[in-house]
């Protein structure tokens, strides 16, 4: 029932907004639908806390501590993004960059995107997981090209082709997984792609097939996580799409893709009994971290800057999942949470700042703190949070990852520190110049929505200082499941 609401509301919302999306109050309807989805997410979470993991609808859907926290995070960021997009898109319309038809497309596709994310998270079927990931690409590709400028169309094309090819690899991996599973489970009743069943028999699955399957799935879903060297689509899609889309791409899509990788890794580790899966993830993770950190220095566009920062953080989380073990998994889950919260709030402030300045070029954005103190402070605090300054939550997760790396893989520590240090220098110097300094920027026609920004940053701050025992128990349980 909770699940039906959770999945039904965004689907219904997308149909509804496709019909009424031209009305003046469509953004409010969008907020309302997202709030409903979030409420359903909270309800589902309460149910899982009270009654333990759920397996419903002929075992097609499965909720455990690992995905339920991502469900609630996804629906929460869906809600805050819809709150942010309300004034943001009105201002864009006011500036004549978007018309009502495009707004209708945006609202409808936004809800559909949230639906695909939630479907990918809650499904128990590895095949449906793939279908939902591909559908997520399809819903966002038209959002990336919403402005219809040459650059945005190019970015969307690149996004579509690269992710399409990547996901084709993941489908091949899924076929191989099915092939291995079918031998053990048989193909009667098609239980052979259900994760819970696979997890029970993972010890009997053929190791050679599964290791090959994992390589394909890591490359496939890894393209969507934005792991280097498959990250090419990510900065373009983030920079050229409207800012709310950048926020959900960074805050949600990357997480869900990483979730898919981790689900595969659990199966493969149980079968192969070697560190192949973990080592591959650690390698890709470190490469992404270092490459993104150095590329950060070359950025001129503020949204590209934070897009590269997303690659960097996804690299850290992938590395941590690759190390495995209770502490590293705990840290990786925490890192996914705080990164989503911080990065989407950063994109919200960046959205308002670029609207004010009328450009995304960092050299032209100056003195935000004098022209609009709340936007300026939001950007500064968000930047400090994302750079892993204590007492924010990113510090806690990065610290945990670092000490685990020191203990178990000492060789990786200097690489991690190098990446973090280089990224710190690159981002801090740029943002500092944008926040302080002289300015004469005009005011925005619609007051910016800064409540979500500060609410999310407050959550990140709270997670840095104090993780509620419920949540900690939950992370520990999920970390134990991942192994």
């Amino acid at each position, binding site marked *: 029932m909770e699940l039906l609401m959770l999945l039904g509301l965004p689907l219904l919302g997308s149909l509804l907004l496709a019909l009424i999306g031209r009305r003046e109050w469509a953004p409010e309807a969008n907020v309302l639908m997202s709030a409903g989805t979030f409420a359903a997410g909270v309800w589902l979470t309460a149910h899982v806390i009270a009654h333990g993991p759920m397996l419903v609808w002929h075992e097609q859907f499965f909720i455990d501590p690992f995905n339920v926290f991502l469900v609630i995070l996804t629906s929460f960021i869906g809600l805050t993004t819809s709150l942010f997009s309300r004034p943001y898109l009105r201002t864009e319309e006011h500036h004549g960059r978007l018309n009502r038809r495009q707004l209708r497309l945006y609202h409808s596709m936004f809800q559909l995107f949230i639906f695909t994310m939630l479907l990918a998270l809650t499904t128990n079927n590895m095949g449906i997981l793939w279908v939902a990931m591909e559908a997520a690409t399809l819903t966002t590709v038209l959002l990336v090209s919403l402005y219809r400028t040459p650059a945005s169309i190019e970015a969307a*094309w690149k996004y579509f082709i690269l992710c399409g090819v990547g996901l*084709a690899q993941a489908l091949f991996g899924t076929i191989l997984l099915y*092939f291995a599973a079918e031998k053990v489970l048989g193909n009667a009743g098609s239980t052979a792609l259900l994760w819970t069943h696979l997890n029970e028999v993972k010890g009997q699955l053929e190791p*050679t097939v599964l290791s*090959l399957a994992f390589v394909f799935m890591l490359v496939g879903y890894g393209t969507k996580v934005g792991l280097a060297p498959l990250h090419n689509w990510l900065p373009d899609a983030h920079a050229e799409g409207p800012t709310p889309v950048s926020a959900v791409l960074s805050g949600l899509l990357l997480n869900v893709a990483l979730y898919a990788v981790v689900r595969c890794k659990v199966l493969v580790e149980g079968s192969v009994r070697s560190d192949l899966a973990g080592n591959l993830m650690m390698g890709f993770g470190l490469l992404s971290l270092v490459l993104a950190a150095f590329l950060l220095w070359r950025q001129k566009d503020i949204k590209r800057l934070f897009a590269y920062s997303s690659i960097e953080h996804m690299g850290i989380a992938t590395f941590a999942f690759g190390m495995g073990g209770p502490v590293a998994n705990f840290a990786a889950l925490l890192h996914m949470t705080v990164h989503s919260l911080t990065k989407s709030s950063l994109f919200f402030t960046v959205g308002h700042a670029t609207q004010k300045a009328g450009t995304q070029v960092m050299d032209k954005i100056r003195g935000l703190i004098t022209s609009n103190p709340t936007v300026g402070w939001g950007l500064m605090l968000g930047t400090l949070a994302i750079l892993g300054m204590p007492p924010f939550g990113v510090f806690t997760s990065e610290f945990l990852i670092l000490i685990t790396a020191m203990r178990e893989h000492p060789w990786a520590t200097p690489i991690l520190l190098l990446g973090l240090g280089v990224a710190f220098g690159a981002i801090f110097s740029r943002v500092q110049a944008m926040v302080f300094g002289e300015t004469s920027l005009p005011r925005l026609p619609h007051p910016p929505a800064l409540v979500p920004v500060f609410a999310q940053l407050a959550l990140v701050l709270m997670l840095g200082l104090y993780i509620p025992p419920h949540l900690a128990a939950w992370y520990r349980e999920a970390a134990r499941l991942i192994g």
Partner: protein
Amino acid sequence: MPTLAFSSQLINLCAALLLLLSFAMLSQRRVLTLVDLFAMQGGTLFVSIMVVAWSTGQPHLYYSAALTLILKVILLPLILHRLIRRLGAQWESETLLNTPITMLAGLLLVIFAFTLAQPISQLANTVTRGTLGIALAVVMLAFLMMITRRKAVTQVIGFLAMENGLFFAATSATYGMPMVVELGVALDVLVSMVILGIFFFHIREQFDSLDLHNMESLKED
């Protein structure tokens, strides 16, 4: 029901045809002919799934074959034909990179695919086990086509041909994926075709041609 040896030979024949068609697509310059080749590839895929369904008596494979026939042989080529006509691109052809070198690269990919699939094929107990290597080769050749071409339409045909290879892999390794997954995949393919169709018009509107050479502004790093 035919004997297994006979149907296995039929499937091998289909697999060989698929591979041949992949090479033909790789070297075809004219866009419309490419669409026809793609339809033929879909047709071969349909025949091979029918043979597997017939010889093994797996009922859900008939649905899967019907899905292939409707989607890959009729609907997608029809949409592509109409799109190309409406874009006025039916006489367009594109200059290829050095054809012999592309062919040679294709050959190497086929060898690579066979080596990769070798250990897995030995584990399979389906009548179609030898064809997994060919399925992987079809996927990789489609990938090569996407890399070497610069026209939006040809890249899309490459993308769809890749999906054909994946469907063939699913039939040859496992007698097809569960129905719900196949339906989902088919839906995704259809929707992506529609979206790409919209895209063609956007691209032409902004760049005055479907040539992706014009798209190089986002190449700073």
